[in-house]
């Protein structure tokens, strides 16, 4: 199969590793070989956190610059910081306000590389639903809304459900569904 690379970014404590686990499990369920790279240790204390996820027969766990098909970012600036990873015609999903994202200075670059940028304030939506820690589920829902990736919406939702701890299952799904719906409306 052709390799599909994901970059997931955000800040320490936002649940990037969980996001990465859900996507990896979706891929494994479909029989794809998966290799991921995670951030542990010092950087997890509020610093920039990034996870790499590679579907395909690869050996190295890091995505090479210019080859990521998908970038999901739980923070706007971390999305910009990781732009060098994006391949041509890649897709970017950011926790940001759709009116202000992307910055004017970045638009020509997206145009040149054929990159599709999508934004939704998933963190604020999660907070309003009383689940400030479920922004990651929100971003997942927003990603699922467009079906740009190799997974069906239902596959992502089921995997999220099965991997969420019981105490957070209902809230995670609520945030997921809300952001999925908002994504569909915006698209």
């Amino acid at each position, binding site marked *: 199969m052709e*390799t599909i690379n994901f970059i997931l970014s955000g*800040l*320490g*404590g936002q649940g990037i590793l969980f996001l990465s*686990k859900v996507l*990896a*499990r979706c891929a*494994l369920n479909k029989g794809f*070989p*998966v*290799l*991921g*790279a*995670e*951030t*542990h*240790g*010092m*950087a*997890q*204390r*509020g*610093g*920039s956190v990034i996870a790499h996820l590679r579907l395909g027969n*690869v*050996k*190295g*766990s*890091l*995505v*090479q*610059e*210019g*080859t990521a098909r998908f970038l999901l970012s739980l923070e706007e*600036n*971390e999305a*910009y*910081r990781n*732009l*060098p990873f994006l*391949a041509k015609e890649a897709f970017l999903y950011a926790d940001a306000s759709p009116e202000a994202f992307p*910055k004017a*200075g*970045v638009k020509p*670059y997206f145009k040149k*590389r054929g990159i599709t940028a999508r934004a939704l304030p998933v*963190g604020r939506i999660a*907070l309003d639903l009383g689940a*400030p*820690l479920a922004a990651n589920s929100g971003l997942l829902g927003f990603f699922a809304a467009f079906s740009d990736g190799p997974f069906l919406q239902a596959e992502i939702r089921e995997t999220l459900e099965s991997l969420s701890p019981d105490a957070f299952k209902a809230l995670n799904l609520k945030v997921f569904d809300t952001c999925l719906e908002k994504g569909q409306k915006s698209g």
Partner: protein
Amino acid sequence: MNEAFLLGNGAIALGLLEGGCQVLTSYPGTPSSEILPEAVRLIRSEKLNTYAEWSTNEKVAFDNAYAAAISGKRAACCMKQVGLNVAADSLMSAAYLGTTGALVVISCDDPGPHSSQTEQDTRLMARLAKVPVLDPSTPQEARKMAALALDLSEKFQIPVILRPAIRVCHARQNFRWDPLKDPGKRAAFKKDPTRWAATPRFRYLLHQRLNETLLKVSERFSQLEGVNAHTLAENKKYPLGIIAGGVPHAVIRDILDENHRTDIPVLKLGAPYPFPEKLAFRFVRACNNVLVLEETDTLIEYLLGDRKKVLGRLSGHVPMAGELTPRVIARTLQRVQTELGVEPIALSEDQDVHELVEGLHLPVRKPTLCPGCPHRAAFFAIRKVQPKALFTSDIGCYTLGLNLGGVDTCLDMGAGITLASGFFQAYLQDGVHQPVVATMGDSTFFHSGTAGLMNAVYNDARFILVLLDNQTTAMTGMQPTPALGVRADGRMGKSISLERIVAGCGVDFIEVVDPYDIQAMTALLKKAEAYVTSPKGGIAVVIARHACVIAYRETAIPEKKPVAVTDKCDACGFCHQRFECPALVEDPEGGTTAVNRSLCADCGVCIQVCPKGAIVAA
């Protein structure tokens, strides 16, 4: 058949147990910390009899595993690369004495570095100690090599090092395995004082024997299928070949495959020391030039005796510091190819994007203590009472006290105390009584605090030592400490009191305080200061005891105190600069301070911090 999506460290744990490891010890340190907990999970689920312990430091871990290895059992100890420095004394000697069973030393490297003081290369420690080393490129390979290392160690009766780098430890892959079995070997130490307690005369003989063993292992390494292997075709000459080991091998393999470059042969050295001479020289003979890609130092490059054909760090083609990321390796290869007139690979990266991103002036995200972290409160009180002191600190979350101006030094484990006494004496020699406040975490104190503290007491150094007791080893992922008494497998051991150790080191001033109570802590620090400076005084130890809010999410803040910022806030910025709680942010509308509700832990400490009284209970 079992299946799981395991961390590389989990794959290593699996490989060890598949290889019949009966005793496993460790001291946590990124990127090695998850090996032992992952092993404990497997031991439980597979109902194995394997013994697993968190040891108090890496040397202790090494020796405990070594005892099993000279009793005929298979054992392993795990640590991070700088932890191997702590265990180096044991390693050097154990290389001479050898084993009767197996000892695998897992020392995880951190090219970057991402979470370490140095980028040191464990393979060079293997060379120094004269023990074999294996260098996996992927989690899958790390699993196989863990078992292989146990086999090699037992066969050649020598400790073997497994050196996974952070990109192996913290990669994730899917694994399947058959049910694991207990090897059931019983401890049988055979007394032989001429070997196990060898005097220098016998050590010379042991050294000779070690050299002979290494020659044999080198032979074996020249034929270690899959681990050391080349892709040369018979009787062909190549303008450029690549020798790579560990993670750089995985990266270059991907790059060559993606670019369909079958014209470039690769010699993979997954077992680089003792150097597989025959294999390496055959490869070099077939190539006009050889590019060496290895992390993080120059082991292979040094061992390739004739370096005329060799391109690498010493020739300036590979960076001398930092991680060899796919970007660095792709650019290195392209440059070398261009120089040699070989068709260069196409780079996937966009040439302008870095300039674009730089132009955005994105905020630098430095790591910070968590909202509600008790260390923040402690550092705030320390700075308040002793603004002019020298602040010696140590390794742990609390190194991030840097951001509050409460950390001036961080050398290595234990140096919070030893540098404190050293500074004190260096100034006192000139007649200056320099105030010094040392900070050290509970786990670090158990690891290497006591020798330094006894030394300081004995030599009458004077400083305040604040033991930041958050009842866990937080930075590395919340491992228990001896004070808790909970052992690696969840059983209870005996808990050890910090107070009693400190008293046992000869300290007479020992007081405990909750750092959340900033007033109480400042009052206590003032008392400590008076004690330290009085002629009859000595070292004052303040134990700032409050549980880590992450490890004890439910209980660390028994009384939640939500806060609000009133309009008394005049945007002076004091709370940002001096307290730097990430939950206190600049209000986007007014420039004053606001509370980020999704980050705030409701600890209420900032109420005591704002000089204008603008932060209040909500």
